[in-house]
């Protein structure tokens, strides 16, 4: 059974903006799924429709086999959503915000209290339970959003850019936490602008652009399509000249940094041995950009150009 099934979903906003042009999407139960796309591609509209914040123009959405039009209530019971913006009353106490959310799902007082305590402790905000939310940092507010989305123990969790603007420490702790709940059986759909995040966490991926799904495959399969990859070598000592290596394009970025672009199928062994033979000592090596980022940019290049320069 799919955790999420979307068929021919369309959304035209008042004023004529066509945000979704009939998308189809299947997310398997238990999956950790990335939904990526540039700004305005249709990600948030899709999530908005699934969570009832946006009314669809046409199409069909099923959450764990339940049609949101036929059995809206049951479908929503299985869903938890972490929105892009802080969407709780910041004048309330943190504990009340999360316990109230449990109450809206009809949980008993005891169950609401237990779930609230469990997720607040898991997300390390239990100490803040009696503080007004507005007094907390952005990262803490993000944790409240996640705890709120989980308090009804959803089978499908959707996170719309959950780590936007949070520090690396929190981002990494959230990654670990999300991996843990995914391993315990919760299906997760993630949208993010940090492609490293998607590459690290997600097994399957869809890329949406201009209201259409332009790619929908496994992360592994997508990464094998990479035609070229650029690696950067940090050097132990300064250099001024590079040895010529046939079939490889080597560049000096600065006296302590060189880069090389390799084609699909080419290995790095030859480069390592030639650099070593030339007395060049390598301190460390990394991808110039994330692998997924390179593919993503290729797939949505036209939209990103338009975003940067405006429509022509």
């Amino acid at each position, binding site marked *: 059974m799919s955790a999420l099934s979307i068929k021919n979903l369309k959304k035209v906003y008042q004023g004529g903006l066509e945000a979704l042009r009939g998308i189809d999407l299947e997310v398997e139960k238990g999956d950790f799924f990335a939904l990526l796309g540039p700004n305005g591609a249709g990600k948030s509209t899709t999530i908005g429709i699934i969570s009832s914040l946006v009314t669809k123009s046409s199409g069909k959405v099923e959450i764990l086999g339940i049609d949101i039009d036929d059995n809206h209530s049951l479908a929503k019971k299985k869903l938890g959503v972490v929105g892009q913006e802080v*969407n709780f009353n910041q004048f309330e106490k943190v504990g*009340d915000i999360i316990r109230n959310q449990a109450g809206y*799902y009809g949980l008993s007082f005891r169950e609401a209290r237990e779930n609230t305590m469990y997720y607040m402790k898991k997300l390390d905000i239990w100490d803040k339970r009696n503080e007004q939310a507005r007094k907390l940092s952005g990262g803490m507010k993000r944790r409240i959003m996640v705890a709120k989305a989980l308090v009804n123990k959803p089978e499908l969790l959707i996170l719309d850019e959950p780590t936007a603007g949070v520090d690396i420490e929190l981002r990494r702790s959230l990654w670990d936490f999300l991996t843990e709940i995914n391993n315990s059986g919760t299906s997760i759909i993630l949208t993010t602008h940090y492609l490293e995040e998607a590459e690290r966490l997600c097994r399957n991926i869809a890329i949406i652009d201009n209201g259409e799904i332009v790619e929908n495959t496994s992360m592994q399969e997508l990464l094998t399509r990479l035609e070229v990859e650029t690696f950067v070598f940090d050097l132990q000592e300064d250099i001024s000249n590079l040895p010529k290596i046939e079939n490889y394009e080597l560049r000096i970025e600065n006296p302590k940094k060189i880069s090389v672009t390799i084609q699909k199928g080419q290995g790095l062994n030859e480069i390592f041995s030639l650099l070593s033979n030339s007395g060049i000592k390598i301190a460390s090596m990394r991808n110039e950009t994330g692998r997924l980022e390179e593919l993503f940019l290729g797939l949505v290049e036209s939209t990103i150009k338009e975003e940067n320069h405006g429509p022509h």
Partner: protein
Amino acid sequence: MDPIEQIRALATILRKEIHRFMRIWMQTLIPPAIMIMLYFVIFGEIIGSRIGKMGEFDYMQFMVPGLIMMSVISNSYSNVVSSFFGQKFARSVEELLITPLPNYIILVGWVLGGVARGLMVGAIVTVVSLFFSELTVANWPLAIFVVFLTSVLFSLGGFLNALFAESFDDISIIPTFVLQPLIYLGGVFYSITLLGEPFRTISLANPILYMVNSFRHAILGASDLASLGISLNVAIGMILFFIALFSSISLWLLNTGKGIRS
């Protein structure tokens, strides 16, 4: 959601709403008490003593039911309109929209929140009035029934206002330019029988007139209703009609997503 879950969700909304207006009691509960005290001092003690009797009652006695209703109406309305629009503005209404809650539970929850504040303020104003006037209630059940229905109706009015509102200006326009004039011209401070034509006939179109006089009838045992040839049942029927109308419109708007969904 099964009925038990719906009741739990409703209780959560109501508890949250009561907690909200109790948290800011200096803004929500104290000002009506002070305002009413000023009305009693100025209109009751200073000016009222020169007016003399209003029908068979002292002017102060005549004013008490009207002032209680005025407080209930304005507080029920303002509680719902400010709370629901505040949630829309801060996007915290999304907390509810993503849950399995049926729309009618959202509506009933907010209306009951408005009723809770309306009745609490009504009780405070009643206590304040005891310092200025003797208060004997002719018909307790009727008084409670009328004040409850009126509070429900104006909570629904506040909810509708909040659904349509797109800015903070929009939530003050209706109370300032519609509600306040209707309250002041609804027989709170005077008997409609004192008005000449055409103002007397025009006043009959003011729904607040029927609520104030129904409540006055329950408190004093007499009101303008009899002299206008309108039975109490008709007056209450009108309140019920408007409750049904406002509820239907609110639910329809919630179901279509007006003001809350894109």
